């Protein structure tokens, strides 16, 4: 790790993370995604609140890991707020790498961010199916 390794945008997200927190995971309108493991030094949790129109009106995260992981998930919450599920699903890790100017050995952080959106959306959809069959 070197001080100069991260760009200004990544450091800003790390020092002033956006949308830290939690939503009620039992609310059927909330999708929760958790990826990573403590042993691998990365755990990323993302929660989305989805309106009946299929828009993500709120997003909260908590991340255990390095600067790159914290910055990736913080940026992610900014990007997906106010966006439809369909559009949120299209976010790719390369976009995060580009925006945060992540160094080569931190690209896996952005991959986790991509995976956590998918996981949260998947969880939300699973809840919707359960609701209909209930």
């Amino acid at each position: 790790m070197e001080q100069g390794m991260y760009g200004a945008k990544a450091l800003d997200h790390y020092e002033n993370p956006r949308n830290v927190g939690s939503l009620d995971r039992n609310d059927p309108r909330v999708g929760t995604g958790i990826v990573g493991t403590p042993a691998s030094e990365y755990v990323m949790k993302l929660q989305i609140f989805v309106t009946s129109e299929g828009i993500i009106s709120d997003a909260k995260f908590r991340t255990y890991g390095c600067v790159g992981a914290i910055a990736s998930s913080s940026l992610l919450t900014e990007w997906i707020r106010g966006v439809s599920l369909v559009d949120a699903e299209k976010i790719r890790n390369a976009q995060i790498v580009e925006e945060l100017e992540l160094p080569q050995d931190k690209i896996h952080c952005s991959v986790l961010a991509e995976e956590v959106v998918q996981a949260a959306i998947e969880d939300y959809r699973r809840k919707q199916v359960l609701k209909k069959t209930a």
Partner: protein
Amino acid sequence: MDKITLPIYLDYSATTPIDERVAEAMCSHMTRMGNFGNPASSSHVFGWKAREAIEQAAANLCDLIGAKTEEIVWSSGATESDNLAIKGVAQFYRHKGNHIITVKTEHKAVLDTCRALEREGLRITYLVPQENGLLDLQSIENAIQDDTVLVSIMHVNNEIGVIQDIEAIGEITRRRGVLFHVDAAQSAGKIAIDLSRLNVDLMSFSAHKIYGPKGIGALYIRSEPRVRIESQMHGGGHQHGMRSGTLPVHQIVAMGEAFRIARIEMQADEERILSLRTRLWNGLKDLDEVYVNGDLEQRVAGNLNVSFNFVAGESLIMAMKDIAVSSGSACSSASMEPSYVLRALGRSEALAHSSLRFSLGRFTTEAEVDYTIITVRRVVERLRELSPLWEMYLEDSDPREMEWAVR
């Protein structure tokens, strides 16, 4: 609070600044007006004076460790000394045996040297320390075999600062007729060493861990009973053929001066440093989920290695830019594995990732320690607020007991 200058250096186990007095001695052995000669030049006064300076430096070194000057071989540092000791013994005594014993928590200079010997066909036993980092003496006794030639165990561990009982280990190795090498890079000048009393056959030293310059070290090789080694550096036959190469007079003089100062000031220094470390730990220990790595009693004064559960080492270090410490986190070091030392103690990977090593030294002040306490507490609390693992822990679903899907 006294005035402090940022950034604060708390990484004395990595290296130390050269003491002004040492730098002065060093500088007077470099330039045309100084004592710059080659000690191997026996035909003129420049060489004689340089030789005298080397002899004085060796005497200074020996005064601290209870050795004789003819038992000292100068090297480029503790890494070279470890290589010379272990390879040198293994090769010289190859006819006697093929087995070496060391410990999983040794410095890489020892472990990697042993790995190299394994490729040449030697057998190596890597002992596992107890959870507190200290060795069970019985495990050494049990590991010695008929063809064991050497036991290599460090005095003070560089990461966790624990002190191995080299007096007791030396009794075992001597009784069993096995040579004993000790890496003392982290202990010399910090805790008392008396080689005239200890059953240690070879001991590695470094200058830069004790306010001397980088690039200079020494290996002690016992003369009675005589220990033999195979040379690893061939050339002009310097240092009785055990390590060829022109002696770097300025560095040797500096190392001698560093050890001379250590002998005089060690006790007072260590008492002061211990009180600062106690202050640091007292300022942190009431945080929830913090763990000291390694035994807190059998430990060198300057070291405090702590795991802050549920926060990652790299983010800790990045958040305290004005305090220089080391981390056992994989993300913050060149390797991708978390600290193998902490892993060998049985610490989980997650705890190893969340560890910081604070190492205090001669120039550490109370104000610096107080600033560090405040900063670390603030940073740990902030990062825990960010950590999903901390949130789970607070919600009574301890992440350590959860099953994690490996993706």
